[in-house]
């Protein structure tokens, strides 16, 4: 182990010891902050999955993905406007609206992301790698522009339709919303894992990620498989956007930029291209952000999170669970 490596591990160990100390001294506060981190992290995980899947299959960092996530919240807010929902309490209409709108938003975002792939990335599939990266950044600004024109610069209100039930257990406050976020995210991640590992299309994705040319020779329709990857990534981003809206009830057009970068960090942290890694990375980054907000100060959180990005890239480029990229 080289000296910088050693320093990195010492730093990580120190952080864990300090956190453990907090957990012992103020357990109530620790658990409360842990819940904050878990909810944030669940959303980051959903977004990180989209980054990691796309990177795994075409080695593109899809910078527009964070904006697809934000657009999901905008679209969700718009569709919910058609229902006679009640923001005061949880009604049957709210439940029906939720059950209809949630999948609808996911499908709409899936469709949009497939269109984005078709327009901005597929024509550049064989171009130098910098070219699709630049169109991805362009697409990101394009989507932000669309949202800006749609609702202007101010924060957009997202209907507050979830049950407002909340309780305090042993000094720790949490509500239905917190449980909802974590459970829905967990279900979606589980479904994704089953899809990737158990279905034919999932197998095709894994094959394409491993070796595109060989997969093509085996009769896999590469274009269709890549489009499916974008579709599924955006399903999750759309779900993330909906959850974000339902949880925070506010969204603004530039949200995707920062959330996207953090989710990207989560994907790298878990090992880019690695699906369980992205989910785990999202959770951990969410927790780190919450702990940093509480114990260090929110102005340092960005420094901490992106410090981790640099640290991981330098000292452990394969991430927590190892990178899965095409073998050359």
């Amino acid at each position, binding site marked *: 182990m080289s000296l910088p490596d050693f320093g990195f591990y010492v730093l990580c160990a120190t952080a864990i010891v300090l956190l453990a100390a907090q957990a012992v001294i*103020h357990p109530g506060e620790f658990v409360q902050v842990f819940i*904050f981190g878990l909810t944030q992290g669940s959303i980051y995980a959903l977004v990180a999955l989209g980054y990691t899947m796309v990177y795994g299959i075409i080695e593109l960092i899809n910078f527009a993905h964070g904006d697809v996530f934000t657009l999901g919240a905008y679209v969700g807010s718009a569709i919910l406007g058609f229902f006679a929902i009640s*923001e005061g309490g949880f009604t049957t209409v709210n439940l029906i609206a939720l059950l209809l709108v949630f999948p609808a938003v996911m499908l709409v975002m899936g469709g949009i992301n497939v269109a984005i792939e078709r327009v901005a990335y597929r024509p550049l599939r064989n171009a130098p790698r910098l070219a699709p990266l630049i169109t991805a950044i362009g697409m990101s600004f394009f989507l932000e522009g669309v949202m800006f024109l749609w609702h202007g610069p101010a924060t957009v209100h997202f209907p507050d339709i979830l049950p*407002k039930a909340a309780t305090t257990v042993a000094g720790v406050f949490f509500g239905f919303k917190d449980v909802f976020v974590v459970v829905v995210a967990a279900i979606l991640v589980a479904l994704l894992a089953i899809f990737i590992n158990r279905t034919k299309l999932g197998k095709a994705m894994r094959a394409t990620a491993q070796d595109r040319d060989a997969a093509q020779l085996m009769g896999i329709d590469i274009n269709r498989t890549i489009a499916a990857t974008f579709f599924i990534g955006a399903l999750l981003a759309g779900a993330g956007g909906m959850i974000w809206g339902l949880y925070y009830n*506010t969204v603004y057009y530039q949200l995707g930029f*920062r959330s996207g970068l953090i989710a990207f960090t989560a994907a790298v942290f878990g090992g880019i291209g690695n699906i369980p890694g992205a989910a785990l990375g999202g959770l951990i980054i969410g927790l780190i952000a919450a702990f940093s*907000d509480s114990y260090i100060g*929110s102005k340092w959180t960005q420094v901490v999170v992106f410090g981790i990005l640099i640290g991981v890239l330098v000292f452990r480029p394969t991430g927590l669970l190892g990178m899965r990229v095409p073998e050359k």
Partner: protein
Amino acid sequence: MVRARGLIVLTTATLVAFACGGTTGGGGGASKGTIKIGSDLPVCTIGGQAVSNGVQFAVNQKNAAGGVEGYTIQYQSFDDCRQGAYSADAGVDNVRKMLDDNKFLGMVGPYNSAVAKAEIPIAAPKHFVMISPANTNPCLTKDIAGCAYHPQDLRAGNANNYWRVVTTDDYQGPAMATYAYKTLGIKNIGILDDSTVFGVGIAGSFEQQFKSLGGTVAKHSEYKKEQTSDFKSILLGFKNAGALGVYVGGTDDQNICIPRKQMKDIGWDAPFMGGDGIETSDCVDQASGNEPNIYATSAGADATKVDGAKQAIADFRKAFSGPNDFGGYTMQAYDAANALMAAIGRAVKNANGTPSREQVRAEMAKTTGFKGVIGTYDFDKNGDTSLKIVSIYVVTGSLSDAAIKDSTGVCGSKTKNACFVWKTQFDFAKPA
């Protein structure tokens, strides 16, 4: 092409002639010409547009009454928004545009102190009058401790060209500190600022006064809009440190009222206080679900509580009937525009013709006993008003229709029955 342009000029001239003929109602006779005044405001925001409406209303009234000493006033509203938020660069561009057109003899604005800081150095050498209806950063006019820049440096040896009809943050923060400590009985508070010049300034002046009264500041945290969406950890920190309320230094465009909503998400029921940057519809929207008990100050008397302004507001509401047309600084803008036009009028008289910018500036500096709708006031040599009134408002939920009409009219766009209601005012010009 030349002919086409001639046609346009002719058409415009005809239209203007018709417009003038229509408004002067046959009296006064032919206009001596036009004088332009501008405004530089973030009109992409509701607050900015409401201010612009106040200027427009004052100009319309003046023109309808025959203009200024026979001149028709032409008003042009410049937008200093970029990417949806105020930008000092955009403001500077706008001032340059006005300076390039000799017909502009002054402007109302800007709205944000950071923009004023960038604009004064460009306008001062050209003796271009700026009257702000809303700038509250004390450093623009006063050389006091804690300022990162000095008024004399902004003006670079030129005569003062900047006035304001509102008082300064060094009164806003203390007013809320006094109110929180003495009236609400809050002795321990958490302070959050949005890391902007305005936010840090007002939060600092609050903290100083709160401590000098004997209060405890549990924690002072800061955030940046681009970096923080989840404030729950910060709020929990305040709560656990014993805070019984939250004071925020910042503006709604920095998402300063989202923490208000999230206080409910951590089960914390406590008052939420801030400066004029939170006395907006956007703020009420951001707080969605937890609107009541947001306290805000405004660096000026509430026009709706001033008897002299009642008629002007009623007339304004007739002319501008939209729900967001009237804002907390609309009447301040109305006064600013009238003070500017009065100075232009005196300069026209003295010059016996179209005055220079320097003449208008000199007349503006001589303004005394100006009878505005928010009061009768003077300006000191720095450009500050003698009115040192700070108003305090609180959001009250579930208001009846009649109560909504009686409120400031600053309500949520979704929760229409949660509005800012005038509570009290502090007059710092009178000894306590």
